[in-house]
C-alpha cells in the first residue's frame, strides 16, 4: 500500500488514506478489521485485539526532536513469554517510517530499514557475541518466543504477522538490534540505538495521573 492510496475497510467500508510511503497493514479505526495487501511473501495477518496495558504512548503521540517531529501512526505489540515489546511506527518527512521499540520504560529507536542477517543464526543466543561488522559486535540479551501479536493504526514495512517466531535482542553500549527468527526463513533484523525517554521528548501521551 502506497502513500495517498485510499482503501476501504472490507467489513465496514470506512475509507482509509495511506500516510506512509510503504504501508504493510492498516487497522480500521472504526471496526478494527485488518486492511492488508498480500504480497505473497508473508503470512496473512491473524486478527487480534490490542491488549490493554500501561504504555503511556498512543497513536497520535509525537516525539519532538530539535530537527524533526515524529508522529506515532501505528503500533505492533509483541507478546513474548516473559516480556512484551511495543514497536511504534513513527511517520516523519512526508511518509517516511521509523520504529520506536518500547518496553517497561526502555526505548530504542530504529531509523534503518529491515535487513537480512547474513551470519549464523546459531550465534543468536543470550550471552553470545553477534558479529555485525568488523567494528561492531553485539552481545545477545535474550531469546524470547513471540506468543501473540497485535496491531493498531498504520504499520510500515513489516513481515511478521503470525506469532511463533523468536525475538532476539543483542546490544553493545547504546547499539542494539532486534532479530526476528522464523523457522525455515531468513533472519531479519532492525538496527538502532537505545535511547532515554527524556531524549525522545514525547508529547500528547497518556498521563496516568495516579502515578504522578
Amino acid at each position: 500500500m502506497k502513500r495517498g492510496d485510499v482503501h476501504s475497510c472490507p467489513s465496514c467500508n470506512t475509507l482509509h488514506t495511506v500516510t506512509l510511503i510503504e504501508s504493510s497493514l492498516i487497522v480500521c479505526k472504526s471496526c478494527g478489521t485488518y486492511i492488508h495487501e498480500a504480497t505473497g511473501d508473508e503470512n496473512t495477518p491473524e486478527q487480534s485485539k490490542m491488549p490493554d496495558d500501561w504504555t503511556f504512548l498512543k497513536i497520535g503521540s509525537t516525539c519532538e526532536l530539535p530537527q524533526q517531529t515524529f508522529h506515532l501512526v501505528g503500533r505492533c505489540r509483541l507478546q513474548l513469554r516473559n516480556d512484551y515489546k511495543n514497536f511504534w511506527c513513527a511517520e516523519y518527512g512526508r511518509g517516511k517510517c521509523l520504529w520506536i521499540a518500547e518496553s517497561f520504560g526502555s526505548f530504542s529507536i530504529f531509523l534503518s530499514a529491515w535487513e537480512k542477517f547474513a551470519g549464523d543464526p546459531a550465534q543468536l543466543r543470550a550471552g553470545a557475541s553477534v558479529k555485525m561488522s568488523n567494528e561492531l559486535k553485539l552481545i545477545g540479551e535474550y531469546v524470547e518466543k513471540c506468543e501473540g501479536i497485535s496491531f493498531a493504526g498504520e504499520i510500515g514495512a513489516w513481515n511478521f504477522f503470525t506469532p511463533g517466531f523468536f525475538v532476539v535482542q543483542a546490544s553493545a553500549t547504546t547499539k542494539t538490534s532486534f532479530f526476528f527468527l522464523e523457522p525455515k526463513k531468513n533472519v531479519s533484523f532492525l538496527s538502532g540505538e537505545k535511547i532515554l525517554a527524556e531524549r525522545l521528548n514525547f508529547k500528547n501521551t497518556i498521563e496516568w495521573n495516579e502515578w504522578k
Partner: protein
Amino acid sequence: MSGSSYTIACPKCQTVNTVRGKAMTLALTCSSCKTYFGVGKWSKDLTTFGTSYEPVLPIGAKGKIDGKVYEVMGLVVKKEQKYKYDWREYIIFNPFEGYAFLSEYNGHWNMVWPVDDVPPLAMSASDFVDEGFHFRLFQKYKAKVIYAVGEFFFDVVHITETTFNREFIAPPLLFALEKSDDSVLWCKGEYMTPSEVASAFQIPVSKLPSKTGMGYTQPMMGKIKNGAVVSFSILVFIFLLIAQMFFSGSAEEKVVYQGNFFQADLKDQKFFKTSSFTLEGGSKSLEVVVVAPLLNDWFFAEFSLIDETTGTETIFTKDVEYYQGYEDGESWSEGSTKGEAFLSQIPAGKYHINIYPEFSTSSHEFSLTVKRDVAAWSNFWLTLLMLSVFPIGYFIRRNWMEKKRWSESDYSPYEY
C-alpha cells in the same frame, strides 16, 4: 488496588482475579486459593507454596522513591540453594519507569532495577569499574521461589529456578547479573535505609523487619565516600598550612626589651629589675629569651612580668644548663646556653620584669631578650593531629567494617 477492569480466572479454583498490571502481568497468585499460575496459553504449570509470608509492604501500596510513584505489584520469597538463607523481593511498578525490586534481607533493603547500560565486564570478571565505582564480586548463587503473592511481569518461579546469579558490590551500590540459557539481565541497585523505605510507603518503620548484622551494600557512617574524605582532608590540611604560614609570616616578633645582667651588679639586692617596656596591640604572645655563657654549669632564674597598670604579675622560671666533655674517644654535649620561655595571651600595656637569679659557681652573667607576637608552631602540629583524627578513625573503622561485611562472602579479598 484500584482502577483496573482487566480480569483473569484462576485455572484451579476459577476465581476471577482483577489484574492490576493489565496485559503486562504474565503470572500471578490467585487471591482466593493462592495458587501461582502463568496467564499465557503456553503456561500450564500451577504452583502452590508450602509456606506463607505477610508482605510488610502491602500489595497495591504506593510509595514515592526519588520523586517517582511506584506501586507494589507482588512479593516473592527466595531461598538460596547452597546456604539456604531466604530473602524477600517486592516487585514495584511505574508506567513511565518500568519495574524495579525492593529486596529485603535481615532488615536491610536494596532498590534494584534493570539497566540498559551494561557494565564494562567480561562475563568471567570478578571486578570492574563503573562510573568511578569499583565493583567486586560478592556472591554467586542459584535460588528458588518458596513463596509468591501478587502479580509479576514474567514467570518469576521459572526464571528464578533457571537463572544463575552473580552480584557485585560497591556499597551502597550493587550490580546483579541474572543469566540463563535464554536471558542475560543486568540490574543495578542501591541500599535504602528502613526509614527511607518506610517514609516512601508512609508506613511506620517499626512495621519493617528489624535490622540484624550488616547489610552487604550498607554504606558505612552514613553516606560518606572515601574519595570525599580524602579530598576534604587534603583541602583542610592545605588550608591549615596556609593559615600557619600566614600567621608565622605576619608574626611581628618585635624585640621590646633587651638587656645584659651581671651578678656583680646585684650587690645587696635579690633581683634585677628591667626598664619598662610597652606591649602594643591586643592580647598576644611574649617570648623571653635567656642566654647565659655557661660551660658545664647551670643558671636559674625566676621571672615576674609585671603589668604596671593593673599590678598583675605573671610568674615563671627558666633554667639554662650546658655540659660538654670527651669520653671514650668521642666528644659529647648536653643542653644549651640559651633558653626560651613562652608566655601566652599577654594583654597590651606597660610592663617590666623582675628577675630573681641563682648563679652557680661559674655563671655570673646572662642576657635577656623579650619578643612580642611570636608564632607557635606547636599549635599547628596539634591541629594537624586533631584534624587527622577523623580521617584516620574513618579509615580504621571502614577497614574493620569492610572485613566484617566481606566475612559473609565466598569471595572476600580479606584474610581471616
